[in-house]
């Protein structure tokens, strides 16, 4: 792991690489470097993209995109430390104009994850072939997983307008 850290630091500039705990490597990179780091890691054998996620840091007015990678086994029945490692690649994009390049050319299975983030956080992934709705039925003014979308307030606003059946029964 330390070796990987060194290789990464020598191959790329402005990276912050840390090892927060055993078998976990965190990389913080600028937005433009994500694609090249992902393809570099893929060439090093970390070819399983487990998750693409997003955290809304509303106070800092930024979205944090998270790519979690791990390695498949090299041999069919030999377990090494390599598969144990999870690499967490993080990058920040502005909340005002949330845009990022898609990673589908490198990892095919990023397609639904990016589609989900587009729908729930409103992040545009350039080059994504279908940023169509995945889960939601309606269009919300604020994408619903952002921190400034208050679920409870929304529910109250929408459903308070509909009268209760009980009230009607009382009247007749």
């Amino acid at each position, binding site marked *: 792991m330390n070796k990987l850290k060194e290789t990464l630091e020598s191959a790329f500039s402005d990276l912050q690489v840390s090892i927060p*705990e055993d078998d976990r490597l965190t990389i913080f990179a600028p937005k433009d470097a994500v694609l090249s780091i992902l393809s570099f890691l893929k060439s090093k054998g970390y070819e399983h993209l487990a998750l693409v*996620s997003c955290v809304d840091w509303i106070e800092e007015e930024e979205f944090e995109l998270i790519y979690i990678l791990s390695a498949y086994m090299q041999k*069919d029945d030999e*377990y090494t430390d390599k598969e*144990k490692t999870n690499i967490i690649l993080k990058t920040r994009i502005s909340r005002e104009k949330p845009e990022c390049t898609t990673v589908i050319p490198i990892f095919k299975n990023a397609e639904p994850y990016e589609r989900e983030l587009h729908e729930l956080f409103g992040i545009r992934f350039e080059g994504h072939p279908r940023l169509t709705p995945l889960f939601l039925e309606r269009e919300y003014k604020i994408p619903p997983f952002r921190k400034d979308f208050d*679920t409870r307030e929304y529910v109250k606003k929408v459903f308070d307008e509909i009268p209760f059946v009980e009230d009607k029964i009382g009247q007749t």
Partner: protein
Amino acid sequence: MRELELYFGPQHLGMVGNFSITLKVEGDRILEATANPGYLHRGFEKLMEYRTWIQNFPMVCRINVIEPDSMEMVYAMAVEKLAGIEVPERAHYIRAVVLELSRVASHLFGLWAYANTLGFDTVAQWAMYHRDLVLDLFEELTGGRVYHIYIWPGGVRRDLPEGFKDKIVTTLHSIGSCVPDYDAAFFNNRLFYERAKGIGKVTREEAKEMGATGQVLRATGMKYDIRKVEPYAAYDKVPWEVPTREDGDAFSRIWVVRDEMIESVHMIFKLLDKMPEGEVYNRVPNPFKWNIPKGETYVRVESSRGELGLYLVSNGEDKPYRVHFRTPSYPHALTVLEKVLRNASIADVGNTMISLYVVAPEIDR
């Protein structure tokens, strides 16, 4: 021939669960398949940001209806990691036993769905009956049949009741004694072979490319199993094998499921034998005033469907800041399914989907 659009599900005999596939067909051949999740989107990950760490347990287990225990386990593991809580040795063993029991129950449920699709109604009823026997065990242990909320941060909720080990052994023996019947009626049945061989074939390279884990990958020969790759609970304490097959089709996947059930049962016997005495629970702080230090973590377990991960972020408060589950059905249903259905026939859609072991609530979350 004329191209048609065909809706497969959510109301369809070949569809288990709230999921639908839009097929573009020409005659019987599928030109293009589009998976449509979202019929069960409850926004759990958002709702969890409004509830305290402990209050989230009733929601976590509902993400995968069929196998709630591994969801509890992955959430408990993440909370333990962020808060730095140790788990007693005995609790590790009990957790592993409960997880394996739920794996058996989940596989029996999967077998029910699959056998039903192929028209093996008798086998399906057997599987459902045997799953019920496992649920009886859970009822005695936890009070709940389907949702258990038994695995907590710091251990498990309570110790095994008196005589419970013997009950597990008796129940598993009575299920295990039916394996020859299952084999004769289903697994060695020529009809199963004819119907499943070569269906929904995924090669090793395709599986790796599409982020597949679990049976989809193990059916191509790779012994990739998080229980071995990154052992948790007590999985590194007893010897056990990872069953695999070579062909990567529906037939191989269902055989992997069968072998895995048998391996799980053997593993439970070994775990029960080796289980140490002692505490099962390390006290955690008052859940209403429990602030977890700032941090983030990614943990993963092997659910009955593949790699189940959780990315959990805390900003030092009494509620999670961000929760994101990496559920195994997500890539299987959205990426793999769309790929393998291309050029398949309409009659094989249900067969393929259930052999990929797709659970809709897990995709939507």
